[in-house]
């Protein structure tokens, strides 16, 4: 079925106004027109490229920072479906925005991971666009989408003045006087609650007008989440269409990349090799975990998951894994019996032999950094994100990384996200045969909330934030270390 876009324009503005009453939308209604296959594909691919950029920028920069906004402004695939400041009424762009979103829903609704990724990027994109809206358009948007959040009276504002001012960095006495404050149930403002950026009392948060974006985002997230679940159910009908199936598969795999669940090297690693391998080819986080395990003959749940799945990814079989963990735990406080009862189950679970039998994939760097931060007694996480700068520096020194490599910090360098198992494979490739140097991608710690706020007299080395030349330097040092080891 082919239907050319030229014909669409003839249908007229009244219908389009109804359909696209606002430049920004919640994507509540699916498109009902027909489009050509090539447009289908172009729209989808363009939006996907945009979302991938959103993803990369989101890890390199704080999402509301000026730098982030500037970079996204410059994104090449954005103007195709977005108008800055909602200035003009461009129907074609709104249409592309609408249709491309729905196509990607088809590709990204199938698994929990895909859904989570898609929702995250769409939200970040939405946040960027919403923040771009002039204030009168915000009011319009709220009205258009039936979001009724009530404002509090002047008396109440006076009573709460102190609390409102101390709850939020952006709120001063004059803000309280001059602006409207909305009383919103805390369940609708989770991001603000989570980060304690708002005054919370009796289950309600008090939000200045300009912070309504977070509320709106939550609403968007909920709607999108529900919608994706519904889409997944109607997917079989779509997938049976031979024209669409290959395209949709291609779209979803473009994101996932290799997930290291299919181990080509399965069974090729022996348990005796693990110690030397940990020194040569493990990324820092896994090395830390391995060390922690050898030292205390125990790892907590978070550490067992992160390390256990990594081991699976490098090729350990289930039997080897059981042997490995048991022999270590038995040296500690756990006797063989207790191990079999309490811990063996969870290892088998990791390999997909228990419970709902999911063959879990090893964690990517993104997952390690962003989910489940370590707390007291934990060894997991990403050392470049979760460790004290001083301790990290010491650790890198003890692993013979050159001092100049460590002290470079604060530079705005791009990098690409990685996977601990990819590090391992690249490193093994290097050691196994001749070839280009191992790419040492180092994660950047840039979240201001975790940095100590007080400046020191000298530049404190921070977790790796290394420009290209330094990365190469570290590579060289690590190379020589590998050769010496």
């Amino acid at each position, binding site marked *: 079925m082919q239907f050319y876009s030229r014909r669409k324009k003839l249908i007229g503005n009244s219908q389009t106004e109804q359909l696209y009453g606002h430049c920004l939308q919640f994507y509540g209604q699916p498109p009902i027109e027909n489009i050509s296959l090539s447009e289908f594909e172009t729209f989808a691919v363009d939006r996907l490229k945009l979302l991938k950029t959103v993803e990369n920028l989101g890890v390199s920069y704080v999402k509301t920072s000026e730098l982030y906004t500037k970079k996204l402004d410059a994104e090449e695939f954005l103007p195709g479906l977005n108008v800055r400041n909602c200035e003009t009424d461009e129907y074609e762009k709104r249409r592309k925005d609408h249709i491309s979103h729905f196509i990607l829903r088809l590709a990204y609704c199938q698994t929990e991971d895909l859904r989570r990724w898609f929702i995250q990027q769409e939200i970040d994109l939405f946040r960027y666009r919403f923040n771009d809206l002039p204030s009168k358009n915000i009011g319009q948007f709220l009205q258009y989408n039936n979001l009724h959040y009530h404002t509090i009276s002047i008396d109440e504002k006076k009573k709460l003045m102190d609390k409102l001012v101390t709850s939020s960095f952006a709120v001063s006495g004059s803000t309280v006087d001059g602006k409207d404050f909305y009383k919103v149930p805390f369940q609708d403002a989770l991001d603000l609650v989570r980060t304690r950026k708002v005054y919370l009392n*009796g289950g309600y948060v008090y939000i200045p007008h300009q912070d309504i974006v977070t509320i709106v985002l939550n609403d968007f997230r909920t709607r999108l989440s529900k919608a994706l679940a519904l889409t997944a159910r109607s997917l079989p009908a779509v997938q049976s269409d031979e024209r669409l199936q290959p395209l949709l598969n291609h779209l979803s795999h473009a994101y996932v990349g290799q997930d290291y669940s299919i181990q080509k090297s399965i069974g090729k690693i022996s348990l005796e090799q693990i110690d030397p391998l940990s020194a040569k080819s493990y990324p820092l986080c896994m090395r830390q975990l391995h060390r922690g395990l050898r030292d205390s003959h125990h790892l907590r749940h978070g550490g067992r998951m992160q390390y256990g799945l990594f081991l699976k990814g490098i090729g350990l079989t289930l039997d080897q894994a059981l042997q490995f963990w048991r022999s270590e735990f038995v040296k500690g406080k756990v006797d063989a019996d207790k191990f079999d009862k309490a811990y063996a189950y969870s290892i088998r679970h990791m390999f997909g032999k228990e419970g709902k039998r999911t063959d879990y994939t090893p964690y990517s760097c993104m997952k390690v950094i962003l989910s489940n931060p370590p*707390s007291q007694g934990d060894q997991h996480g990403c050392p470049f994100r979760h460790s004290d700068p001083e301790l990290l520096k010491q650790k890198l020194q003890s692993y013979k990384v050159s001092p100049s490599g460590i002290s470079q910090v604060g530079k705005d360098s791009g990098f690409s996200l990685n996977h601990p198992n990819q590090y391992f494979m690249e490193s093994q490739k290097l050691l196994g045969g001749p070839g280009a140097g191992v790419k040492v991608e180092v994660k950047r710690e840039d979240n201001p909330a975790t940095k100590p706020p007080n400046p020191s007299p000298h530049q404190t080395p921070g977790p790796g934030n290394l420009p290209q030349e330094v990365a190469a330097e570290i590579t060289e040092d690590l190379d020589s270390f590998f050769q010496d080891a």
Partner: protein
Amino acid sequence: MTTADYDQASLPDLLPLYYRRLFPFSQYHRWLNYGGVTKNYFQNREFSFTLKDDIYVRYQSFSTQNELEKEMQKMNPYKIDIGAVYSHRPNQHNTVKSGSFQALEKELVFDIDMTDYDDVRSCCSGADICPKCWTLMTIAIRILDRALRDDFGFRHCLWVYSGRRGVHCWVCDEAARKLSVAARSAVAEYLSLVKGGDETVRKVVLSDPIHPFITESLTVVENYFSQYALLGQDILGSKEAVDKVLALLPEDILFLCATFHMIFGVHSVASLLAKHALMKTAFFNQMTAKKGHYFEMEIMLQYCYPRLDVNVSKGVNHLLKSPFSVHPKTGRISVPIDLRELDRFDPFEVPTISLICEELDQPKTEEEQDDNMENENKKEAGERRKMRDYKRTSLAKYVKLFDNFLEEMAHSRKGEVLKNSGECNLNP
């Protein structure tokens, strides 16, 4: 003497007695039934049991209180955990189409475990506790309970002693039970101030503005700090301990301390710090007038602020040890804690299963015989006997606490119903 000697080996003999004559089944069912407002709420609740020899069974569910009683008396579980209310009966989950069996609701829960404070307590470590470090639990309960009530508006929080080294909180409000995973995680994050694992030295970082929640929490900590940290934990009592505190200070303050040390010597610095005098001297204040220096607060918080495991609170399907369950290692019953008497709560006074079983054998007092006569006509024999039984033991006051808690919830439910039906009579 409030604790008979407890021996884990005697559990197989004690448990049947406990479940037959002491476990408060009627109150337990009343709790989990929540007034019968939602259909099948009790029937779709997951329980898990740990039996003898560490056999663990999940997805247990029961149709009635009677069925629950019979099963527990048959299995005599060593441990009981409570899970979520699911979309279907958990014991039939295998018959449900894959994907349809979902955890729908559960109380919002918190688990505070003393081992998470090992880096800041000097008296004990690991599974051990003592009266000195128990203050940490007191502080935790005060801070969290206030926040759950005042900030979040929750009214029905049941605090329970875990039986060994910590406390649990069950938030039973309807709104709490309906919270999503994201919401639970947000609540837990809001309540978290101490962040970082072994690798992090400075675990509390404050910056402007100081949120009212932090101010409120600090007020509680300050009440206890001198007694608990300076005296009890003696955090400035040895060079090693002082070094740990100093490690949390920003560099320019350290420089200051070093200067004072040179002038006044080690002991003076420690005692000055101990009296907070150093921090209050005009000189010091001048130096720290710079914005952003909250190290004094950060130190107090790092040593005292509650450390909760976000993962326990996040999951709707997370299983948590049940109130009135026995702790196999200590024999202690997981009893509710009376917040009105919080400062007097002593975990070492909590009754053990051996104690209460022993108390069962003691002859009836005259008082009890009179009570029995009164109740003779009201209830059937079995229930009568059960009511008499736990009342004779140290468990009685804890069941009463639980009763009060349930009464309050019932009262709230009635209030809601009246409100919703518009029948509220304000001016008779």
